[in-house]
């Protein structure tokens, strides 16, 4: 856990939830008369459920190509919703995994740290998003 937290420190400069992005989505929703933030949150929460389920399985089964794909897909959803820290965690995870695949050598401690940090941040941001959705 300590190792994970020190690894996590690298991302402390990034916001967990970028309020300006959320505000942009709320305004977009008002302009077109749709619950933009609510709909994006619902789809994101669905994706996080899948991610939390899949990450440890794919890691244990060493299906690294699929891990890259999952990280890549999730990265973009996080960016759309202003989950900056999670976005950068996924982006770096994708990059590192791709590099490992290329050199055919896998640093399991690094991968484990990413999996732990992403899972931790996902849980925290999902709650924040849900309450932000209710508030709007």
């Amino acid at each position, binding site marked *: 856990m300590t190792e994970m937290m020190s690894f996590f420190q690298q991302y402390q400069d990034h916001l967990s939830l970028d309020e300006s992005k959320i505000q*942009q989505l709320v305004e*977009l*929703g008002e*302009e*077109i008369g*749709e619950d*933009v933030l609510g*709909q*994006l949150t*619902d*789809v*994101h929460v*669905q*994706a996080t459920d899948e991610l939390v389920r899949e990450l440890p399985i794919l890691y244990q089964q060493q299906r690294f190509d699929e891990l890259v*794909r999952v990280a*890549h*897909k999730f*990265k*973009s*959803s*996080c*960016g*759309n*919703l202003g989950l900056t820290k999670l*976005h950068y965690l996924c*982006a770096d995870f*994708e990059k590192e995994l791709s590099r490992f695949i290329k050199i055919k050598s896998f640093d399991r401690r690094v991968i484990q740290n990413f999996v732990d940090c992403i899972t931790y941040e996902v849980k925290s941001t999902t709650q924040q998003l849900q309450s932000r959705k209710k508030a709007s």
Partner: protein
Amino acid sequence: MGIEPKEANSNKKNIIVLDDNKNDLLMAKFVILRMGFNPLLIEKSSQLIDTLQLHKTSLIVLDIDMPGLSGLDVLKKIKKVDSYKNIPIVMLTGNSDIGSVKAAISTGALDYIVKPIDPLVFESKVKKLVGFQEDESKNSWVEYQIQKVTHSEFKLGLSVTLISIGEMSLTLKSNQPLAKGLTFSSDSELFKSLEIAQPVLKVDSCEVQGDCYWVKCSLIGLSEADLKKIRLYSQLLISKKMA
């Protein structure tokens, strides 16, 4: 959730978005709705042709990174189909893989948008490209040389832009030199939109201007009604340029 292709609103231009990420599809949908266009959202490459067959499409937004058939593969397929190859395409990319972007641009995509989708960037690029096809079809065309001796036609592989049009003449910018006296008929969308059936043009002069050629042509054998349409169009063109 509104992800599936929906019936096109006949008054609005259709924009297809193909992406396997539901969140990106939704994001694109909201921005396209704000722009006043009709979003047609699809998650699988296999649905694209059906959607193109059902709906007249003004723009395709295509994700590069998709499982199975990649965005680049889809782009290549579209560019091989005559009926769809002129639809402007913009690529969506989630990473800075310059290689894929370059490959897409050289295959015929007009631009790319980096994810996560920034509504303002997305809107400005889409707006620019939706108008692209219209402008191109009005100003560019391929000509047919008239082989009077054999009565056969052969296509001049010209990329042509209209510069000005008068009652009896027009000036165009071409990527190839045209010989003085050459007679050819035009299948320009411009003349089609004016309901003038393949008018005949004769080259009066051709001058080099930078890396292209400015060609002055006479319009031959037009009826009074055709001339009237051209006069009106010419006035519109001038006022558009002045504005």
